[in-house]
């Protein structure tokens, strides 16, 4: 008998296109390993040795991880008050959400260009400060790590806002009411009730922004200049200028391993900080 509870048949085919897309993705990742480990003499760690033996590359890795760590934490700290504001103003939330979403969805090359226009030696900020008589020669705001950190933090902040806000919106209003009726002030309620409950969102934001800054290329090249190399810019150079896919793949795997380590560390910190929900 064919009833509503019977498992519908013939639907498995509908999964095929999605499976093909994922197979392509997994195949691409498999090729990454193949290129990185396979030389004409067979399996080898030669490409990894080429990378790990060079002291200047160590500096690139260190800079990549440090910038990603600073950027992801800075964007979480700066995004939190924005998420809090949107959470507290339900009437205005939709309009204010547009102010967050549009900068998030606008191409990051455009946003980076905006920072070039603002922070450049003859940019808006330097010219204004000079006009106001505050400075005499332009401040070096770009073509250094500072420029990269400012640009990346701004590029990634909207995502942190969204991750934090989506967790804040899940908080039961009655918890706050209970805390306040028990005599806690607004600040104490925030510190002891809202903050611990919103930390998972903050950590989701940090994880994704950390991953994104680890793999960033455009912002580091345009705001950091040629000498301020990061892993992403190094990979891009190997592919586009040196056509060395094996070395690029080895770089990409190093980047993946470092990113995974970063995520594991974040998970550990999160587990230590976030109170377990008692169910």
């Amino acid at each position, binding site marked *: 008998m064919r009833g*509503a509870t019977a498992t519908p*048949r013939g*639907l498995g085919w509908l999964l095929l*296109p999605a499976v093909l897309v994922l197979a392509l*993705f997994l195949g691409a990742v498999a090729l990454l390993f193949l290129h990185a480990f396979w030389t004409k003499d067979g399996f080898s760690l030669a490409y990894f040795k080429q990378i790990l033996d060079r002291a200047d590359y160590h500096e690139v890795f260190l800079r990549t991880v440090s910038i990603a760590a600073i950027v992801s934490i800075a964007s979480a700290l700066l995004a939190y008050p*924005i998420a809090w504001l949107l959470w507290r103003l339900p009437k205005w939330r939709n309009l204010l959400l547009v102010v967050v979403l549009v900068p998030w969805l*606008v191409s990051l090359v455009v946003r980076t260009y905006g920072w070039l226009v603002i922070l450049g030696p003859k940019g*808006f900020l330097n*010219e204004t400060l000079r006009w106001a008589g505050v400075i005499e020669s332009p401040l070096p705001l770009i073509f250094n790590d500072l420029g990269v950190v400012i640009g990346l933090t701004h590029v990634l902040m909207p995502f942190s806002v969204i991750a934090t806000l989506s967790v804040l919106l899940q908080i039961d209003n009655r918890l706050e009411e209970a805390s306040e009726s028990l005599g806690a002030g607004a600040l104490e309620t925030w510190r002891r009730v809202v903050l611990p409950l919103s930390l998972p969102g903050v950590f989701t934001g940090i994880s994704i922004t950390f991953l994104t800054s680890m793999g960033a290329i455009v912002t580091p090249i345009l705001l950091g200049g040629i000498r301020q190399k990061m892993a992403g810019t190094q990979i891009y150079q190997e592919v586009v200028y040196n056509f060395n896919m094996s070395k*690029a793949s080895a770089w990409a795997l190093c980047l993946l391993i470092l990113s995974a380590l970063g995520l594991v560390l974040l998970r550990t910190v999160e587990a230590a900080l976030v109170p377990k929900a008692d169910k």
Partner: protein
Amino acid sequence: MNAPLIKLGRAGSLALLFFLPAPIVVIGATSFAAAGYLRFPPGELSLRWYAEAATDPRWIDSFLTSLGIAAVVAVTVTAIAFAGAYACHRLKPRWLATFELVVMSPLFFPHAALGVALVNVLALSGHLGTATGIVVAHVVCTLPFAWRPIMVALQRIDSEIVEAASLLGADERRIALGIALPLARSGIVTALLFSFIISFDEVTVTMFLTGPQVTTLPVQIYAFIQENASPVLAAISTVTVAVTLLVVMLLERLIGLEFFVAHDPA
């Protein structure tokens, strides 16, 4: 009691919020300045940079390429996501959680690594530097963004409606196209617009895949910044901001923006 403190917090947060659109506002203002840069007091206004952009075939071509690629990607990825999510939703396989983890996995890949991986695979099939290659890459990158809103919309459909239709003799095709498709339209429209805008604005992965024949607008902007800091860039950038704003407003009008901050009904 704590009113002044809360007011101060709100003012500070609002200032931070308006820091987000600051660079695009500066670009927009620059694009209308005849002098090509911002200054106090503001100089003469002009549309000369827009006119210059509109007469340069490089900008027109890459703009049309980006629009075309984004449209094809949006329709393709939404169809793939709807078919897959619908099958998963109806069949509820035991491996669903694992499968969805794989669907979401491109999100956890740093873009530089994703770029190299896709170059490797597209070079094998000879699609490097072609529009087809870019479309395929964008479909891989946008699948997670299309999958989630559609899955959420499917889960919201009252299962009794499907049961009733089935008891009344509707076949699977009828249930899928006559019931699930229209009832999940909020998820489908969100997936279409969201994947369109991600594809239209994507640069980090795409810059690995463009070639002398095909380039997208964001990659063209990137290349142009490096060789020439002409204010034409401000005009072009403002056009991409306008496209993005248009899509976000459309989404807000048609569906609402709650999706971006809503959690999956679990």
